[in-house]
């Protein structure tokens, strides 16, 4: 990347202090490389972990990679937005969960149900029935071509 003119978001991450024994900073920067260069990107573009993983080098460990994704999804960083979809039996499909807090509460309390059927789930079943993914924020889309 050209050091003379960096993207606004790269600059933001470069100037942020991360713990030096992790590769989170590197992970964030590699994710940004991908997100900024991705040609078609809109509010409905959805990325699952497996997909984002392909754009982050393998020398970065899985835990650091996951932490990097969540870092970009922090409210104050506001690059990605975390969303959930859950299995809805009546339509035989995964459907976006609008009440995101419901899922976040389950994750916090470690008490899992399917948000639609209300069926109680083990953590493994929850992982199968509730998928998480990330979409770019409108803030990121507005500023992703800004270079400083």
């Amino acid at each position, binding site marked *: 990347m050209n050091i003379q003119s960096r993207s606004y978001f790269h600059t933001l991450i470069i100037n942020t202090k991360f713990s030096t024994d992790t590769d989170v900073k590197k992970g964030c920067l590699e994710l940004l490389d991908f997100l900024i260069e991705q040609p078609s990107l809109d509010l409905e573009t959805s990325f699952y972990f497996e997909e984002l993983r392909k754009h982050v080098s393998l020398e970065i460990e899985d835990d650091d990679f996951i932490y990097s994704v969540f870092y970009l999804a922090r409210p104050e960083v506001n690059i990605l937005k975390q969303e959930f979809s859950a299995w809805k039996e009546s339509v035989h*499909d995964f459907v976006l969960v609008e009440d995101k807090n419901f899922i976040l509460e389950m994750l916090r309390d470690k008490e899992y149900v399917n948000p639609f059927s209300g069926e109680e789930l083990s953590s493994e079943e929850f992982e199968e029935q509730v998928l998480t993914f990330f979409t770019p924020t409108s803030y990121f889309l507005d500023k992703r071509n800004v270079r400083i």
Partner: protein
Amino acid sequence: MTNSDQQKELQLIIDECRIRGITLDDFRRSFRSVSAEQPKQWRSIPSILSMLNQENLEKLSEKIQKLLENHRFYNDKLLVIYEKQDSEYLQELDQLFSEISVENKQLDYGYIADSSYNLSEKDKVSLHHFRKIRDIFSKEDIDVDKLPKDAQSELNEFDRIIGVRATKLDCYDAVIFDFKENLMIIQLDLISMLNAGEIDKNIEDFLKTLNSLISSNIGNAFKIDKKTNAVNLYPCITNFYKNIEGAVTRLSFTTSKGVHHETLKGAATDIRKADYHIGGKAKESGNIYPYRVTKKFELDIDNKPQAFIGVKYNYFAKPGAKFLASARIFDVMNFKSYAYIISKIIENR
């Protein structure tokens, strides 16, 4: 009624809602609207109810009763639409069904004339419920470890053991008269829970029941026309796909390479705008042939009705003129959405 009686009554309504497929997510919205704690599980509902004061309990009861009533009226239905009906003819049937439902008359095929309603004064729409008990089948995983040892060894070779549970449930099939548009609609309840193979038979049984009631009371001349004279919704499949309004949420189609099924992934709202669809379609020079399509219309935050129109692949692939008598509607929870989705189905056929 005492608080505890009211709790029990509300619990019964909630149980029926749950069996009818109203989601926990929907319930949380009702609880939130009366500022009650939102249930995290079905089984946490009784304790939340017991903590509500009389006023909030009444408010919540009213909300949930309305939710159940609207679900019986509008949601998860199969529709057969008859248009250009003579208004005097509709009046005759409307009057007959109203009279019969006052008496809760027992009819053929286990039907009972349940109740008649005026859905909209302004639009002149009435609805007559015909109640019938159906077995609703649901699948459940069986935990093999909880079975006796000898049964376990018998089942060892299977990865997953599934039980089928039949629940008896009151279903509310209906006839709707729209005096403004001169429409008559025959409607089956809880269509997502019916076995696909039994749907046609259920429509036939309902029509036979209505027609035997009609001919014995007002004469053969008033019998409802056979299904094949209802509105042909087959063209609606292509039109739903082509017409830009609304969003396509599910799609089955063929191309030169075979059959494809697409659903929405992640935050995508319209399959037609998704990269994977646009890319695939471009490779086929835009030549794709839909045969099952689900379309969602967003009127406002509370009204996002969906309609499914489709045929089986075998029928689609057969040469010759095609006919489709029925459409399915879901996520329809009030008259506004109901009237809207029906007008869209008719407009697009």
